[in-house]
């Protein structure tokens, strides 16, 4: 009896002890579940952010496809109701109806007709090289684009167009729309003679004919002179915001416990890695675009800062420059910092094939550039292929290797077929750190730039023919 009376409370105490320990274990599981739910929330937010980048890219591309073929109302519909369009230094047009008319007048369309263009009208406005920054709250975004135009009227006029665009976007209940487009026209140059033969425009007196007949609703936010004056349209990332070129930092996922929660924790690890890699693809698209926009305007130091500490830069047959300071030296082979008056240095960045490593630490990409140059009144076309490598530096992507293989250089007036131009040998006044890694000649000689990838579908090596 006495034993029982003493045993009961002992057992009771033991049961309470076990329950308390069990509760501690349950508390641990509860906090694991809470942590897991936090991770799920963060994965969802980042997925939405990466999806937003693709939606912004889609908006800009759709805009181009509409304006190409006289679908100006449909292009204007991509804007918010009170959206604005600033055309060069002409001024700002407000609201979709005004934007539709603006695009129609510049594009040669008709306000009376269903979509289309008249016989002989060319209004090709390629929307290229997007550099997209989604705001942290997911409610707004900005992007820098390049518009490359083939414009004209058959047997009347043929023109090259070049512009930098800075867009602002808003997320209107899940639908991304253009809130404001700033179209910094750089030049409209006649096909004969091209941009190199353009004369400086005095002051800011270069209002378009369209603006004279169709005045804007408000003056432009800033005046500038077109090419051959070198003007740098403001960057939406001038404050040093590097969100666009950032992704998940590399992590080694820990080994998870072998229980139900552990299996979900491991699943979250896999999602984070896959998402990080998808995010990295876009970060690298943005990085290449950012680099290209700096090169356009001779901003060698800013471009060189996008390389890792031991990053390498190799252009044509100029040799290899190693490390940020050297890369800056190598870039300066293109001209003085900020370019000289009348210098055009457009390197259009297009056609990416980006492969991020399974661990999200490095990446390789093939890119192409078309090149529009002008210097001392001489114009030049160029083309080439990059095979680059990138590194994820604690979440910010950087170039570890940039290698531009020149396909061709050609005199503007005669063309590349009639008057190809050979590559420069390594500079003796500003020599590289290492000689060229591959020795080759450019057009009229042609060779296959080595691929970093096997055939994307068959997985087989790339064939010679």
């Amino acid at each position, binding site marked *: 009896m006495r034993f029982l*009376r*003493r045993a009961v*409370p002992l057992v*009771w*105490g033991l049961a*309470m002890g076990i*329950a308390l320990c069990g509760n*501690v*274990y*349950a508390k641990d599981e*509860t906090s694991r*579940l809470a942590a897991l739910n936090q991770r*799920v929330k963060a*994965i*969802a937010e980042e*997925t939405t952010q990466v999806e937003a980048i693709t939606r912004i890219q889609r908006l800009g*591309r*759709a805009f181009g*496809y509409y304006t190409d073929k006289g*679908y100006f109302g*449909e292009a204007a*519909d*991509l804007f918010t109701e009170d959206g604005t369009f600033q055309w060069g230094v002409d001024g700002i047009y407000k609201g979709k109806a005004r934007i539709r008319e603006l695009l129609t007048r510049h594009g040669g369309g008709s306000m009376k*007709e*269903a*979509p*289309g*263009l*008249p*016989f002989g*009208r*060319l209004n*090709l406005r*390629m929307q*290229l090289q997007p550099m997209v920054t989604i705001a942290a709250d997911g409610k707004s975004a900005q992007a820098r684009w390049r518009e490359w135009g*083939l414009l*004209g009227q058959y047997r009347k006029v043929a023109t090259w167009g070049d512009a930098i665009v800075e867009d602002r976007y808003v997320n209107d209940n899940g*639908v991304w729309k253009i809130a404001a487009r700033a179209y910094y026209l750089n030049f409209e140059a006649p*096909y004969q003679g091209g941009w190199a033969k353009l004369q400086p425009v005095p002051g800011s007196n270069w209002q378009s004919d369209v603006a004279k007949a169709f005045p804007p609703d408000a003056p432009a936010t800033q005046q500038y002179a077109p090419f051959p004056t070198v003007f740098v349209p403001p960057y939406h990332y001038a404050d040093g915001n590097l969100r666009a070129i950032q992704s998940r930092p590399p992590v080694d996922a820990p080994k998870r416990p072998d229980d*139900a*929660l552990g299996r*979900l924790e491991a*699943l979250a690890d896999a*999602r984070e890695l896959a*998402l990080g890699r*998808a995010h990295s693809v876009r970060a690298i698209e943005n990085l290449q675009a950012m680099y290209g926009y700096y090169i356009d305007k001779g901003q060698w130091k800013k471009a060189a800062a996008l390389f890792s500490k031991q990053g390498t830069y190799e252009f044509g047959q100029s040799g290899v420059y190693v490390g940020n300071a050297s890369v800056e030296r190598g870039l300066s082979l293109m001209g003085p910092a900020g370019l000289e008056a009348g210098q055009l240095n457009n390197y259009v960045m297009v056609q990416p094939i980006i492969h991020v490593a399974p661990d999200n630490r490095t990446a390789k990409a*093939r890119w*192409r550039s078309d090149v529009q140059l002008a210097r001392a009144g001489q114009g030049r076309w160029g083309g080439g*292929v990059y095979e680059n490598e990138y590194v994820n530096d604690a979440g910010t992507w950087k170039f570890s290797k940039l290698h531009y293989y020149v*396909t061709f250089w050609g005199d503007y007036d005669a*063309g*590349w077929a009639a008057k190809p131009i050979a590559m420069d040998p390594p500079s003796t006044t500003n020599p590289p750190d290492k000689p060229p890694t591959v020795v080759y000649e450019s*057009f009229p*000689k*042609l060779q296959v730039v080595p691929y970093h990838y096997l055939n*994307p*579908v068959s997985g087989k090596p*790339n*064939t010679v*023919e």
Partner: protein
Amino acid sequence: MRHFTNRISVRLLSGVLAAASVLVGSVAYAAPSTADLAAVEKQLNALGDRITRLQDMTDVEIVQHAYGYYVDKGQWRSLSELFSEDATLEIGGKGVFTGRPRVFQYMAEAFGLGGPKTGSLIDHQQFQCLPTIHEDGVTAEIRCIAFVMSSGGWGHNYYEDDFVKKDGVWQFKKLHGPFNMYSGYKLGWFDQVIVNTFPEKFLPFPDLPPTVIYLTYPSYYIEPFHYPNPVTGKAMPAPSPRAGGEAFGR
């Protein structure tokens, strides 16, 4: 007295422990339920689908961009491997070639084997790709531009291509690339247009006739968009019947 004390202390101890466990238990330290875990798994699976879509968009662009790089250097075998066994190819006005072997034959016979040819630039650049992955996750469409810089001059064309995902690998199901504007270098589109191709223009003859008759620059044709307006969701309206004519806008 000791017996009384023992009973009090035992009861006191039990009471304290009982109170403590009630307190501890009341702060919701139950182990996660099956329902809790199922909810997390469901969310992670849904996110997995969305992340896969993001990778799908990159993968179809890779196939399209790879096509362009292979064309540049006459790598016709590699190019044909980008196509599904039963894919079709229609470029310009040449008509339709059906099946992967015919894709290879068209390229090899029309443009020659042996890789790139000295002095013959044929850069077929792939710009501005707008991919749409369908809900089923195994079909997709893309609109792109082919911008050609060649020894002959300029070319600007649109693609409206279809893709299929077979055994996890995205590949061309249909390449449809009508010409838009071709012109020689000397005068460009001012007055040196190059006309569209047609089935008999050069060998090989196609397997099927062209799917659509259209006019290139300086006339007007719009290859229909596979996607609705990204903002309004509206389908594309037909162009004016007067588009491309002198009467347009009058």
